[in-house]
């Protein structure tokens, strides 16, 4: 699509990408949120290399360093900027590793849900009729139950484990993608280029995935960011409740749950800082998503 616009427009006019960037940078807070988000992703990807200590290396963690306040120094002179937990692990390093797991699970479930949900949505929109009615009824019914409830039902049926949590998150999210894609695909389906593609006798699959799909992308990107934030929050909640990830995968939710046990004796930092990390992650994704919605909305474009 972008190529077509570039060819038809005079050379002086900015490309869609340039326009997108300049629209996005209009709002300073969104730019800040984007920078924070990039930093968080960087930390998540490179956690093992940039963490001050390895919190899960039993040889390096010393019980003598346990329950230290933020800013205290360890026996070997390492500073624990955010304190240590009851096992002597550095909270800052644990947060870095936790971000890796939380973001990993959130993003992976988001991508799978996006693929499945948007395919189902496209099928509903393209074929219409009974198929559409049936799919959308299922979507409506699922969306009438809160996400946390659907997730709890699935977890109680599936059991615990990383794969189970991802399956549950995918099943919670797919309906949002399906509904979004169907909405925009219904509008796109009646446009000339689909008619042209049909006249060229292209196959159904080709029309749906090569022609219809790319034009439904903008709203999908917006829903994708918001849903990923939602998935991260939901995973943290499930893990906190002890029905999410196993203790071998210490995500931010598990770190907070871990801190809950010692919080009543005054060690606030063990669950306070992972919560702040979770909050910053969710808020920055939501702010970026908000701005994307404004920028990608064709009705708001000049």
């Amino acid at each position, binding site marked *: 699509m972008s190529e077509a616009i570039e060819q038809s427009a005079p050379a002086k006019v900015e490309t869609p990408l340039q326009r997108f960037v300049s629209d996005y940078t209009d709002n300073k807070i969104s730019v800040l949120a984007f920078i924070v988000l990039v930093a968080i992703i960087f930390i998540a990807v490179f956690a093992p290399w940039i963490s001050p200590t390895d919190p899960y290396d039993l040889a390096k963690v010393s019980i003598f360093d346990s329950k230290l306040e933020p800013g205290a120094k360890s026996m070997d002179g390492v500073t624990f900027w955010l304190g240590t937990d009851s096992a002597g692990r550095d909270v800052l390093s644990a947060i870095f590793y936790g971000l890796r797991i939380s973001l990993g699970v959130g993003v992976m479930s988001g991508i799978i849900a996006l693929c499945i949900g948007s395919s189902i949505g496209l099928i509903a929109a393209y074929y219409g009729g009974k198929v559409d*009615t049936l799919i959308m*009824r299922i979507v409506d*019914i699922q969306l*009438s*139950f*809160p996400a*946390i*409830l659907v997730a*709890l*039902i699935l*977890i*109680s*049926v*599936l*059991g615990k484990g990383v794969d189970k949590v991802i399956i549950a998150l995918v099943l919670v999210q797919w309906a949002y993608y399906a509904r979004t894609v169907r909405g925009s695909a219904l509008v796109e389906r009646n446009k000339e280029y689909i008619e042209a593609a049909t006249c060229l006798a292209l196959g159904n699959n080709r029309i749906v995935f090569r022609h219809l799909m790319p034009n439904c992308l903008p709203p999908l990107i917006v829903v994708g960011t918001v849903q990923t*934030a939602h998935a991260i*929050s939901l995973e*943290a*909640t499930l893990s*906190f*409740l*002890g*029905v999410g990830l196993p203790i071998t995968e210490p995500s931010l939710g598990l770190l*907070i749950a871990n*801190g*809950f046990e010692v*919080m*009543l004796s*005054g060690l*606030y930092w063990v*669950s*306070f800082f992972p*919560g702040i990390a*979770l*909050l910053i992650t*969710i*808020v920055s994704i*939501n702010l970026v998503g908000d701005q994307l919605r404004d920028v990608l909305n064709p009705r708001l474009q000049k």
Partner: protein
Amino acid sequence: MSVFIIRRLLQSMIVVAVMSLIVFVGVNVVGDPVDMLINPEADQAEIERVIRDLGLDRPLHEQYMYFVANAFKGDLGKSFVFGESALKLIVERIPATFELALTALLLAVVIGVPFGVYAGMRPNAISSRTIMAGSILGFSLPTFWVGLMMIMVFAVMLGWLPSTGRGDTVEIFGIEVSFLTLDGLSHLFMPALNLALLKISLVIRLARAGTREAMHQDYVKFARAKGLSETRVILVHVLKNIMIPVVTVLGLEFGSLIAFSVVTETVFAWPGMGKLLIDALHNLDRPIIVAYLMIIVLVFVVINLIVDIFYSVLDPRVRLKDAGQ
């Protein structure tokens, strides 16, 4: 109208049937049914007796019929941990959960409406912008973490409020309630506020939007022209009109409060049905899990049904569109 209700009723019944099938298949096929339904401490003779009793040696469709027939009799199995009827255990916990959810609903209105009206009256003031930023934060904050921080500040650091449990309860109509004793109220406040946070943000937004719209309406101008005080215009005329969408949306959100109470109940050790579910998941107390899921699905289907009917009464387009399909 009656066609619409019958259609919706039918759909609700299908949802319950499908859910019972999913739960049944989940418990009996995905996992080992013997493992799931029989107390792990039972001996061999006991296991064989229970297998025969539960009909686990029969084909799956017969087993499902058996499960459904028992469910209609109100028998969803006995809890492994408590040794009592799972259904009875859950029904006993319902009042605690409903008390928490209703209090949260009340707090959402009492806190959300004044802030929302204030922000709607002065949309550009810094104080209003702060309120709106706060409401965005309210949407993003993870509920359970906020609960922990509340316990940290108000129970551990300041020692103002108790951190766990329900406190003293009083019995009315055979139902135990906390809100009639001072001790019960002090226990109720923090969990209810925690559960209400998301809804407070929602009410602030609704009330703000409603107020902004109402301020330009003729009836407000007329009330002012009559010489009514600004307080009276806001408190009587504007408030009455913005309460309609607020009450409608909150009614819709009651179900989600019950669902989210699972989280709040766990944080504050509130003895409701959500806490029972989480405990059952930890103890692998399967009959409780099955019974909880069936009850909660039933509660939701009923809530959705009421909302649908309520909506179709308010907005005729809904039922016309549905009849047209």
